[in-house]
């Protein structure tokens, strides 16, 4: 059952997400930033598995996350439920022993597990008091209600009691220690537990030396037994866990929804806009966003984040983005890609308002690192990546090219780039092509004329202001013809390099 992320609880298999896109869009960093804690970390891979082009699923998730953002206290209640569910996976380390001299074995630990069973009731009571609007959260509350009344749930309590009864009230517990190479007791295990009656019967005939007890020994033994009991609890929990697949299935769903809410709150806290994009039909190939920004800038600790409007022509457009080095071209590219990705996760986006058509896939081509791929041949590596992208290209693909095909002679860069761009346009794909090959943007009408049935070709450029003869970056982009200068000499000067 997956009630928060998929309508009717039916998980839909997603197409494999390109690993190159994960790397180029730095999705790992975004995933890490949205994780609600180290323990509940979400990975880019997990999130990409949620990527969907189904508007019903996207709207379903948007409604759930909107509830979490809007209903005060709901995220805390869901977090508590998450913590409770977590115990079913045997991962809780919440050992609680009131008396440090008492061995926390069996009753405390196992009664804690037993007590967990009651948390299903408690969670249902807490969540049912919120006036949720999303169908997903309605389903969750109903699921808890069904579960707490189910025969299966009732039987778990009985099974638990039966499996753990032998661990109560032991009189002697034997711990085995293995010595490591340094002759230290380094690994230990619980070997056996004897009840009082057996111990008495055995003990009479033995002449063992009673080791002298001191407080440290008692405390450490108590600690070791607690750890061993935790290990035993985990093992017993694994029996129980098989009976709780439904509950455990909710765990990651809750983590994803709470992570999405956390991400949106972090933008709000920085004074930046947040929106749920309005979905447009896929056939419109719409992408229009107001005050779009790159959320990775916040993660990098940038205090000043510039927002840009981004509009691709309906019906598909490949925009060539040119301009000065370090002027914000890559940032604009990333903000567009991340906005599309977050939209299709059903998550809030970093913009004030947006109209977005889902895409089949997001394909990225960023310059490979000379250090990693130098020996294989940078051009060969890049050509392989582009060929891979072309093989996945559809009419509804989003393409994000970042200074591609530069690791060969300048003339060859131009001619190969023109061919690849024309093919992408002919296929009807849309996206951004960041480049210093100004001719690509300058001759875009020739490209359009060559493949008139395909996507449009557009030109955008970074906006510079003149500051006493030197360019000043605004980090804004605008529609317009390429200016024909990348200001590399200025980049050198700013970097302190003068020949």
């Amino acid at each position, binding site marked *: 059952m997956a009630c928060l992320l998929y309508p009717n609880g039916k998980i839909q298999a997603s197409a494999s997400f390109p690993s190159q896109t994960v790397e180029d869009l730095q999705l790992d960093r975004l995933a890490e930033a949205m994780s609600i804690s180290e323990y509940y970390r979400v990975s880019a891979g997990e999130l990409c598995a949620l990527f969907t082009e189904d508007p019903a699923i996207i709207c379903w998730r948007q409604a759930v996350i909107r509830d979490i953002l809007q209903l005060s206290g709901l995220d805390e209640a869901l977090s508590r439920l998450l913590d409770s569910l977590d115990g079913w996976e045997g991962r809780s380390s919440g050992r609680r022993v009131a008396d440090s001299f008492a061995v926390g074995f069996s009753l405390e630990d196992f009664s804690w597990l037993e007590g967990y069973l009651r948390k299903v009731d408690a969670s249902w009571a807490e969540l049912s008091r919120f006036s949720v609007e999303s169908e997903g959260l309605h389903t969750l509350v109903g699921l808890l209600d069904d579960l707490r009344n189910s025969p299966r749930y009732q039987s778990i309590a009985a099974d638990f009691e039966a499996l753990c009864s032998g661990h109560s009230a032991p009189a002697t517990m034997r711990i085995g220690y293995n010595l490591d190479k340094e*002759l*230290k007791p380094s690994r230990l295990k619980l070997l056996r537990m004897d009840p009082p009656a057996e111990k008495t019967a055995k003990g009479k005939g033995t002449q063992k030396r009673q080791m002298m007890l001191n407080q440290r020994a008692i405390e450490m033994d108590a600690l070791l037994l607690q750890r061993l009991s935790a*290990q035993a609890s985990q093992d017993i929990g694994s029996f129980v866990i098989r009976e709780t697949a439904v509950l455990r299935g909710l765990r990651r769903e809750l983590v994803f929804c709470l992570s999405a809410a956390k991400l949106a709150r972090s933008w709000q806290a920085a004074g930046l806009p947040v929106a749920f994009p309005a979905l447009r039909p896929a056939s419109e190939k719409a992408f229009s966003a107001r005050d779009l920004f790159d959320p990775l800038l916040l993660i990098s600790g940038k205090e000043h984040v510039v927002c840009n409007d981004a509009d691709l022509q309906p019906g598909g457009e490949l925009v060539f983005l040119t301009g000065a*080095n370090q002027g914000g071209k890559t940032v604009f590219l990333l903000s567009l890609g991340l906005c599309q990705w977050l939209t299709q996760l059903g998550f809030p986006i970093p913009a004030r308002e947006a109209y977005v058509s889902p895409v089949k896939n997001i394909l990225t081509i960023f*310059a490979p690192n000379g250090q990693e791929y*130098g020996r294989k041949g940078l051009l060969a590596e890049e050509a392989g990546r582009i060929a891979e992208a072309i*093989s996945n290209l559809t009419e509804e693909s989003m393409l994000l090219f970042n200074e591609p095909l530069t690791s060969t002679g300048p003339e060859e860069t131009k001619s190969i780039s023109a061919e690849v761009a024309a093919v992408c346009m*002919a296929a009807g794909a849309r996206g951004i092509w960041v480049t210093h090959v100004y001719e690509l943007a300058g*001759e875009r009408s020739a490209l359009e004329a060559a493949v008139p049935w395909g996507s449009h070709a557009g030109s955008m450029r970074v906006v510079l202001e003149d500051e006493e003869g030197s360019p000043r970056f605004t980090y804004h982009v605008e529609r317009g013809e390429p200016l024909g200068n990348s200001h590399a000499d200025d980049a050198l000067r700013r970097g302190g390099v003068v020949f």
Partner: protein
Amino acid sequence: MNGNDLLWAEGKPLGGLDISLAYEDLELNRLCMLLFPSLGTEGALSFAESLLTDDGETIRMRQAAIRELLARPALAAVLEKLLQAMNEMDAAYRGLLDNPVGQRVTRMDAAMDSVKKAVIRLERNISQQAADIREENAADNRYAQLLRYTLFRKRLAACYTEEMSLLLDELKREPCSSLPLQALSRWAEECAARDHIEQTSEVLRRLDAEWKGVGAFAIDVCMDSRRIIVGLEVAEIRPGPYAQRGMFEGAGTADPKDGITSLISFPQNGSGTLFQEYLLSQVGYEVRGQLTKLRDALVKLPLSGVEELLSLRDALLYYTGAAGFCRKLQEKGSAICAPSITEALTFRYTAARLPEQSCTGVLPVPNDLALEPGGCILMTGPNSSGKTCCLIMAGQLLFLGQLGCLIPAEAGEFSPRDRLLTLFAAGESKTGEDSRMGMEVQRIRLLRSLMTPRSILLFNEPMTSTSAAEGAQICTDLLTDLARQEVSSILVTHFNHIWPGLEANFAALGLSERLHSLVMTALETTEGVQYLYKLEEAPPPPSSHARAVVAAKGLRLEDMLSGLSARGLDVRPADPGWDRIRRGIL
């Protein structure tokens, strides 16, 4: 005698080579893993770094010893085995130093301990207050030290005698010729005479048969009905360890005799360490009779050479690693040579190969490479023709040379450098901290601040993250500036058109003879481009043959269109518009 005597001509470290800004680009960590695999990637690199030198005598001394080990594989094998045994010897030796009390415990101690403990118990009963824990621990720790001292000494003696016997046997076969191995041989003979190695081995065999020692033990924790701990008892002492699995693990398939839980790690903190000591003391007390008997026999065995032997570890690691690396090269069919030291050239290599690939992959095509001090090589050629490999080769050969190793080449000479500096084309930052251009500019600034006339700079396709015209101009300015400052450099690039400008600049500086254009050759055939992977001195070619590379990857226009058509996309391969694209619209 210590390891430095075998590694450095003057018995102490001298000079070096700064590789901190080059090791990643030149993949020196992978190369070092081939030299010293037992150290792991980072360990191998930092170990090699510590041995880099610009001292000619040291380099020649190491080269001679490596050549001798190559000629005597049996001796190299014994040194490798000795090196492996040193890990265990080192741990055992440290164990002895850490447990000095174990050497002095007597039977009287046990009687005294009983009295002290009785007093402590009495005090507890009377005052109802905590006993003098420190006093109690001091008594208990004695038996932990006794146990460890005895077992470590046994382990150390066994390793030492076994390995020294093997070493002596091998060294006696024929006299050594290189200075380091002569010194090792003299030292081993002296030790053997002092420590009566053969008799010691016999005594150890007898002791081992009498008692196997302690590998694991069990403690019973006794509790009252409130689960308060009321007592501990040593329940079992055994020579072998307990099994990993417990009764829950493996869903009931484990043997219940293995215990309830699987093995877990002992908690690592301060009080945990004390408790480990406490437990070991109790176990030591239980077997104190056997331990003191064994200990008394062991301390009579002479082990005077252990400390010096352990100090040779780095030297053995270096020589066995370097010799092993050369053997791999030879097995792959590569020539090897000991490069000589010269001041007349930055380097000159004849029929040299990329070291790391020569060891692990298909043997690369050999190439000649030479550069005078303050000279510059512009390296151009088709995409994927091997330019980067040649650049890395130049860096790796210099690294190996200054490590004192032999190199995969028919002949070689070089002058030791102070810094190896690189700039390889930056990819997009994975943390978004800076743009590609920004990162390269920062790197150039850093390199220029560090370089000296004794440095060498290796560039791989820099400045591709701006317009071609601007990138080419920056490369020209950069190389001219380096020549002016007499710094040796190699630049790999596709900005082939910078050659005339460079020639003019060098001529204006009066340095024309120091500028070289090397081209990685390829043949254009009717079936495409045939790569020869051979460098030749010639002006840069007009084309980089990029079409051949992208076509091989499926990026030919026809291939792209037919592929998309086959998947049902409306790309109209027969449309006349594609002819315009083919003819070139830019």
